[in-house]
């Protein structure tokens, strides 16, 4: 995401302050105050608000202003339910259409995620990975639903990987999924991915577990 640097700076600071609880849920964020705090003009603040609203960090209420959003478990459960219902259907259509290029692109994004040190980029990279594995399905409406889900989850994913003990994101489950696809084991790949999504959901909901190592206990 290459945008204006002062916008990026403000967005970054806001994400950090929200993730670490310096700004509590429902706090009213005023443009002028934020501009003063980060020593910038109001223009980039407005743009950063727009970005963070898009990523699920802020609620924008018409004629009232911007507020730190409280992530509700109910919403996470709903998006996970939709996700789990749709994943088998879309992957069944998508996996047989993967080409060499698909695998190359997937590997590239996974490498990027592994090397990513900036937690506010992880969410976008994981979303990019999702686009690579779902788009070949040729199901544009379903792909757009996944886009909606990921867009709303950028914050959840960012925070998930930031607050884990090891801030570097492990993409073990993703790599295993890609390996199974390469071996043409479509059914196994789908089961593997659905299980992973279920584990993610549980971990995200039980936020206190954030400090524990991620999934795949067996390995």
């Amino acid at each position, binding site marked *: 995401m290459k945008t204006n640097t002062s916008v990026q700076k403000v967005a970054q600071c806001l994400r950090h302050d929200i993730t670490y609880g310096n700004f509590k849920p429902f706090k009213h964020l005023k443009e002028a105050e934020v501009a003063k705090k980060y020593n910038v003009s109001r223009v980039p603040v407005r743009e950063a608000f727009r970005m963070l609203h898009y990523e699920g960090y802020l609620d924008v209420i018409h004629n009232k202003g911007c507020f730190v959003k409280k992530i509700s478990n109910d*919403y996470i459960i*709903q*998006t996970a*339910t*939709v996700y789990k*219902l*749709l994943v088998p*259907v879309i992957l069944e259509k998508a996996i047989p259409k993967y080409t060499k290029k698909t695998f190359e692109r997937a590997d590239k994004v996974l490498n990027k995620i592994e090397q990513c040190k900036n937690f506010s980029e992880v969410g976008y990279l994981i979303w990019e990975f999702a686009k690579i594995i779902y788009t070949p399905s*040729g*199901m*544009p*409406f*379903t792909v*757009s*639903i996944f886009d*909606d889900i990921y867009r709303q989850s950028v914050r959840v994913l960012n925070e998930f990987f930031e607050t884990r003990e090891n801030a570097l994101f492990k993409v073990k489950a993703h790599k295993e999924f890609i390996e199974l696809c390469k071996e043409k084991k479509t059914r196994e790949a789908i089961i593997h991915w659905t299980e992973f999504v279920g584990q993610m959901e549980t971990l995200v909901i039980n936020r206190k577990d954030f400090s524990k190592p991620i999934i795949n206990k067996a390995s």
Partner: protein
Amino acid sequence: MPKEKKKNNTVELIARQIREDITKSSFKSSQHLKEGYFVKKFGVSRVPVREAFRILHSEGYIDMIPNKGSFVKKITKKDIEEIALIYKLLAPVVLDAAIPNYKKSTYKQIEEIIIKVEHCKDFSEVGYFLWEFAKTIFGPSKLTFFLELFDKMYRNNIRSLNEIFEASEHKQYDTSDHREFLRLCKLKKKKEAIDTWTKHISKIESLNLKLRSN
């Protein structure tokens, strides 16, 4: 009901005319719709034409391609099958949560919308009534994310629903499944009600596919 209608009559007039021309195949699939043509035809500025295009885009009538213009949307067999597949997967989950929350007022609302659909003579309104029906039966689930998703699905398929009505005999939308659904809900037969609705989705799918094959 479509808010746009009250906002601007010129816009709605243009939108209505284009809907009709698309439905009756006066405009063919993938045909380029030029703003200038409608500006001349209706003797208006570009502003209401553009607004009408926007409405038709949201209803699934046209594709708007940046730097290229607006085109009559081509609805493929694959598109129809995809929507039906997704709808059939998600509807049972939402209805399962919604039906136990129905109150007397919900039944009354459902009944009223069915009557509206049955009395509707204007093909470009029927899609909106059916969307309203969907909101009423799914809304009590309070599953906001699912509801947003269904809203998007209905909005993008207003055209298909309108066209099924237009192609129906005696210009009457068949509400027998809607009535059966309501009857079963009142009898607290949740499972049967959900079955009825799932079958209804398949029925709409095959009507839609038949329409596209001609």
